[in-house]
């Protein structure tokens, strides 16, 4: 069973847009996004680093534009900030903890076409994996802070933030921990040159080869979690209920994925997803 949670479909004009992709964020959302304490974000607002307005109840609502400007202007990247201000309190592992760990993937991809393809693949081949989708970089950062996924699959060209900046920020984020990273792109090798630094030691999948190259990389990144879950799972596993997202199930083909994981990784993809 695979749980698909569509957070912010972007160029599908029929879909509603949730707050994560809206014009404003709460201080808690921004704090999670930047790996900072809520108080630090409040101080940034008070200093004028971020533009915000207050609700009648006194809660700050931070504008998306000012957040984007601040992130783009931060040479330290998203995480340098967390280091400066003191990051969120982490468990020793730096990861979320559940009694039964649900393997969680965050896809940051603006193309609905490829959202659909990745969703189909995960649903078809990875039983028990929870897939969340964000349609732009800022929404992706918000979701990353909320979800603390085990694996992030991210497109290079995204609205809201340069892909290299996003990747660098994610990899050095205070909450990144052992999260794995896979990059999707339709750019060929020459076109990726401007992103070479951000893509160093990162598994890269060329989109036309996604069906062949992505499953082995997911298996390599999350196989141990899938194995653990299989061992722990009861014979009947109820579907997870997660607020704000649809839950879907489909026949699993874990064995197929496992066999594919052993297959040679094609030239577009490197053998191992990068650690943070």
């Amino acid at each position: 069973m695979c749980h698909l949670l569509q957070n912010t479909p972007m160029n599908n004009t029929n879909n509603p847009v949730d707050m994560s992709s809206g014009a404003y964020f709460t201080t808690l959302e921004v704090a999670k996004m930047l790996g900072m304490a809520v108080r630090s974000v409040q101080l940034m607002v008070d200093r004028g680093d971020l533009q915000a307005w207050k609700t009648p109840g006194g809660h700050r609502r931070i504008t998306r534009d000012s957040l984007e400007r601040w992130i783009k202007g931060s040479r330290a990247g998203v995480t340098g900030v967390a280091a400066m201000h003191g990051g969120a309190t982490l468990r020793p592992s730096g990861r979320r903890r559940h009694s039964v760990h649900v393997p969680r993937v965050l896809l940051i991809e603006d193309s609905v076409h490829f959202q659909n393809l990745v969703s189909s693949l995960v649903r078809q081949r990875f039983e028990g994996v929870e897939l969340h989708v964000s349609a732009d970089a800022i929404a992706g950062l918000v979701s990353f802070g909320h979800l603390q996924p085990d694996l992030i699959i991210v497109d290079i060209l995204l609205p809201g933030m340069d892909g290299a900046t996003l990747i660098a920020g994610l990899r050095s984020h205070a909450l990144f921990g052992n999260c794995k990273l896979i990059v999707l792109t339709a750019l060929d090798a020459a076109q990726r040159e401007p992103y070479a630094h951000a893509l160093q030691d990162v598994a890269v999948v060329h989109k036309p080869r996604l069906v062949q190259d992505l499953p082995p990389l997911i298996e390599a990144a999350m196989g141990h979690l899938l194995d653990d879950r299989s061992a722990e799972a009861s014979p009947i596993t109820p579907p997870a209920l997660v607020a704000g997202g649809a839950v879907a199930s489909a026949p699993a083909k874990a064995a197929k994925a496992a066999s594919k994981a052993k297959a040679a990784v094609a030239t577009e993809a490197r053998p191992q997803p990068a650690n943070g």
Partner: protein
Amino acid sequence: MAQLPPCEQGAVQSLFDNDLALFLTFRAACIEQFEHDFRLAAALLAAQQDRAALVRLAHSLKGVLHTLGHTEIGALAHGLQVQAERADWAELQGQWTALRLRLVAAFGLDLAA
């Protein structure tokens, strides 16, 4: 399988590991999404303001078309992606119209957009 054009049959074999069901699922979802893409392109070209969004749309279509085996039409999408950064809007409208017509013909679309 035999009902698919040769380029798509090639994609099933070379890009989808002969998983015809997955290919057809993806193809059907793409056709549904093309309608939204067409509306978005029409809105962007009418507004003549957001080049970056047009670049991303063309880039998305390029990747999709290559994945579906339509590399020739994908080249048109790539051309639009490159030109969207600098060409005048009338030229972009022409390029989009050419791309749209090829998409309609290749996938048997019946769209009002």
